[in-house]
């Protein structure tokens, strides 16, 4: 990674460009670096123009599903009568919890005002006067940062009554979640925000019709909202200079695991793992790549054959996975696939909300099979049983949590079936909590039982 000519073009960072500034989270730094200028531009425009702008930019939701943001905004009923007469709300999903994902929390830590500016512009566009930022409860430090930034914004007249003399009013509440993965699901988040038990709601009605307090609501991810001021400032054509036709714009890739420099790498949509690995200094200790997730554990895993898959919505889907939250978790050859899958499944079992049968009971069952297997008590039928149980969960559960829980298992068996069978055949007498494979280093030296 030393030769300059092989260093990939990191682009001029957009979303993360302030992260390395001194005291980047302060209003002063934000304003000094061009912050809240987009807001002034936005407030001078008609809200519908902003919706059109974001539609034109092709911005797609950064929370995982990739729904076109401008289209979501345009679903909000407007007008003085009928459903449009109800109060409208913007809810920011900052309940970042997908395993491996850590893009929103650093955004809120390093550049909270970009989120707040995005909130103001979005609220103005959808004609909401109340915005709630639902932050994952465990993320105490970011909650404080965002709250402090909101207070600064109020003091500066960016929030509250008559924002910057525009006549537009907006209040932002930063709400701490209570620690449930399911509350990242937008309707469960809304229930939780209302003070109810966080479980997904029946759709329809969709949040655009009956969301928070049964009123029209837009729910967007932090990164999505933080992208908005840049689109307003740079225009949709500029935004489309990055990424692909259907997946334009910059994206924060959370690269973790067995790489030399794990961290957040902002790159245009469609960047490949090969490029990201180069940015991250390559595989740690030179141990070869075994498997990786393109967008968190809920997206089917990839292997070394997928190094050149463009990581955008179409590219990931075309290769049999999903872009998800672009949480790129990289695992080298020391890691046992059944063990990793067991750990993930334990997570889903713990986080299944319990509402529907397939997810609640299925994850409970799958964990026990995997744990038994890893503890040397697997049977040859287990692999087929797991696949069938996954088939009975996928597409049968109430929300996508159940679907996501099956991804690591089915994809692992797809690419590493033999490793499962070998583990079953091997029947290790002593349970090995971490089934580390013996591997050879790139330089030929033996490496055994090393935990990464």
């Amino acid at each position, binding site marked *: 990674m030393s030769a300059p000519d092989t260093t990939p073009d990191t682009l001029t960072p957009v979303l993360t460009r302030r992260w390395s500034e001194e005291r980047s989270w302060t209003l002063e730094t934000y304003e000094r670096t061009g912050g809240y200028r987009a807001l002034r531009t936005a407030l001078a425009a008609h809200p519908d123009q902003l919706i059109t702008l974001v539609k034109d930019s092709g911005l797609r939701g950064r929370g995982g599903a990739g729904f076109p943001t401008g289209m979501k905004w345009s679903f909000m009923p407007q007008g003085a009568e009928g459903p449009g007469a109800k109060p409208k709300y913007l809810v920011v999903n900052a309940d970042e919890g997908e395993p491996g994902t850590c893009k929103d929390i650093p955004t809120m830590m390093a550049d909270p005002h970009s989120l707040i500016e995005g909130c103001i512009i979005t609220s103005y566009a959808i004609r909401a006067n109340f915005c709630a930022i639902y932050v994952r409860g465990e993320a105490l430090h970011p909650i404080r940062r965002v709250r402090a930034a909101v207070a600064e914004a109020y003091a500066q007249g960016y929030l509250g009554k008559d924002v910057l003399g525009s006549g537009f009013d907006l209040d932002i509440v930063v709400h701490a979640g209570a620690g449930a993965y399911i509350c990242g699901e937008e309707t469960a988040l809304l229930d939780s925000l209302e003070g109810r038990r966080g479980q997904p709601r029946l759709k329809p009605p969709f949040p655009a019709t009956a969301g928070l307090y049964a009123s029209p609501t837009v729910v967007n991810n932090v990164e999505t909202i933080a992208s908005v001021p840049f689109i307003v400032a740079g225009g949709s054509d500029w935004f489309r200079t990055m990424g692909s036709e259907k997946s334009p714009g910059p994206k924060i890739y959370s690269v973790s695991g067995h790489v030399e420099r794990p961290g957040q790498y902002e790159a245009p949509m469609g960047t490949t793992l090969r490029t990201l690995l180069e940015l991250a200094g390559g595989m740690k200790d030179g141990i070869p790549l075994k498997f990786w997730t393109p967008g968190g554990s809920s997206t089917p895993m990839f292997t070394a054959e997928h190094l050149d898959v463009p990581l955008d919505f179409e590219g990931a889907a075309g290769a049999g996975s999903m872009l998800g939250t672009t949480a790129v978790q990289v695992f080298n050859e020391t890691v046992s696939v059944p063990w990793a899958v067991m750990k993930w499944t334990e997570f889903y079992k713990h986080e299944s909300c*319990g509402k529907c049968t397939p997810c*609640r009971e299925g994850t409970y*069952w799958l964990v026990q099979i995997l744990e038994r297997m890893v503890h040397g008590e697997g049977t040859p039928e287990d692999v087929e049983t797991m696949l069938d149980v996954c088939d009975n969960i996928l597409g049968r559960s*109430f929300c996508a949590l159940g679907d996501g829980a099956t991804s690591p298992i089915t994809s692992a068996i797809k690419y590493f079936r033999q490793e499962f069978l070998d583990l079953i055949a091997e029947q290790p007498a002593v349970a090995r909590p971490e089934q580390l494979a013996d591997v050879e280093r790139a330089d030929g030296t033996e490496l055994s039982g090393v935990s990464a």
Partner: protein
Amino acid sequence: MTVEATKPGGARAEPPEGHVRLTIDGIEVDAPKGEILIRTCERLGIIVPRFCDHPLLDPAGACRQCLVEVEMGGRPMPKPQASCTMTVADGMVVKTQHTSPVADKAQQGVMELLLINHPLDCPICDKGGECPLQNQAMSSGRTDSRFVETKRTFPKPLPISSQVLLDRERCVLCQRCTRFSEQIAGDPFIDLLERGANQQIGTAEDKPFQSYFSGNTIQICPVGALTSAAYRFRSRPFDLRSTPSVCEHCSSGCAQRNDSRRGTVMRRLAGNDPEVNEEWNCDKGRFAFRYLQSKERITRPLVRDASGQLVEASWTEALRIAAQGLLAARAQRGIGVLAGGRLTVEDAYAYAKFARVAAGTHDVDFRARPHSAEELEFLATTLGTTPETGVSFAAVEAAPSVLTVGLDLEEEAGIVFLRIRKAVRKRGQKVFELGQWTTAGARKTKATLVRSVPGAEAAVLRELAAATDDAGKQLVDALSAPGAVILVGDRAAEVPGLHSAVAALATRTGAKVAWIPRRAGDRGALEAGAVPTLLPGGRPVGEAAARAEVERAWGLPAGSLPATPGRSTDEIVAAAAAGELSALVVGGVDPHDLADPAVALVALEKVGFLVSLELHASAVTERADVVLPVAPDAQREGSYLNWEGRRRPFGVTLDASGVLPDCRVLDTLAVEMDEDLFTQTPAAAAGELERLGRYTGSAAAPTAEPGPTPRPAQVGQAVLATWRQLVDQGSLLVDEPALAGTARPPRVRTNAATAERLGLVEGEAASVATDRGAITLQVELADLPDGVVWLPANSPGSAVRSTLGVGHGALVRVAPAGVLGGAR
């Protein structure tokens, strides 16, 4: 207007207005827009397995058992869809488990998952044999499970109230119980706790499942997770004999099912009657039937022997003695008949006829509670309505607004309360309650409280009806909307002028009026003529033509019926106490329910001859000369008229040999007195009443003036408000401790300012006293008017009429407990 054109090729016409056309398992079907797919399947006879789905609850889509394949616009949806949440659409093609391998596998998969944590305890489970899980596991499940891991376990059972027990291992988390409690009853005492496989139903700490409707959750539980303390482990469904019946408790007339085994009713379930109780009943209706087996039941006739002891006698002897005594009394100062409010229509008719034919008097009254002459005038105007001509459950549900007067619906007619709650929740019905405080029922129906000092309701209503202020205009406008109804409870009789004020308001607004008495027999007894002013069919005693009709029908000599009305319950009691009546025939009347129980007891004591027709030993039988046992509903047939005027016939549940209904006992007693009633059977009595027909004239509404507004005259005084709670010391609630445990705790209620003035502290005991006695209960603050205290009328430690000798609207002394210690 669209013109239907016949399409070439004989194609079917377009679906009717408001309908869509879809195909299910190859069958084309029209369904109303918005119908849930699983219902459309049902109508076609295609049963899709389900757990969380219930037609009266909002869809949940939680169990995922009802998955089917759906094609929209020619494109198959990528995942199987829950047919309990999906609404029908035009052109939809649906394939259920019968035609889709995908749906079939999905259903089998969900069933296998549901069973992995379900205990295999069907052989000892109450639900075994009638269990939707068991049945659907057979129809839609695998023959064996692949699950060899460890099942999740919980300690069990967990009592969530004294009546309802929860087995969390059996629970499939369908949320029917929690949705019922939240949506239907408005009592969200139970909810989901924890998550994932540890998710479970539970209650908050120290907040048991104290709902009057909790038993419904047991009935709709699709597994054996909720069981009742009363029925748990008592019998197996397949050993039970089920008989459709009607509830005998309140005037709603709920359909129910009696399940009996070897001569004993083991349990009662809510029957399915969409017009009346839908599929619900209250816990009193469900659980209060142990009186059938009470050791206080009287099964043989009793007569008082020479030593003054009641001894068993043969029917022949008992009837002879009773007839002799009554004949002698008739020849002296006469006989009074107290029928009671728990009679079937047929029995009430027999009492009405017995009084006129055998006792030769109009001194007959069913009203075993405080009453008034104004009330009778008012009731005469509400007589004879049916669900079609008067107010019905459906009309209450459809009403834009409802005013309740002297009626706490949740406590007195729970099923009407549920209907109103449904209308409030689904349609935003406006409810006004003329009362004293925001009761639980008022809160749950979002009622606007029209607050009044007890006894001043009539004046308050008159003032509002004059619509001089916003509150008045709001009420009058709401009640002027077409379909608005005014519901009047029997408690209104305790307030002078209230019936007149209601009648005036109804005339002014056009709102329909319905009378919802607390007891099951009241409406029927009124129609059957068991009142001093009316003959059967609502014929006024004072009208010669009406009397003549009845005389002809009964084969009496013309002019033999007295032309002046008889005496009311209070007057009969007073006359008996004063020695102005020689005998009393008393049906199911508890003297403690009467306006002045002390006087009533004196009357029973003093009257020369007392005949009691009773189920159980009581204050009346204790004093009776002859006690004639009568059959409880379970051992007879008959019918009630519910508050709508709807006939609610029921058949025999248990073996009826050896027990006789009141109408038969009275018939035989009359024969002994040489008179014929022709009421040997309920059918005979009903037939005669039917043939008699109805009075065709109309009655004038009462125009009584409101009484003076009661005001505390001295320091330490307050005005008493009081009415009964659903689960209380009622005589039919005996021997059911699990039900009694779910009663609302008796409390004395007052507002904060009054409490402070009287020196009362919330949570501490206070005494409410008159010169007769005192009631001491814990204080709870509520939004009563100033200077008013509320007491439950007949709850443990609070028998208001018996202890205080006064009732609603009376002045009482109130002080912290201890201060009034020497009241008596």
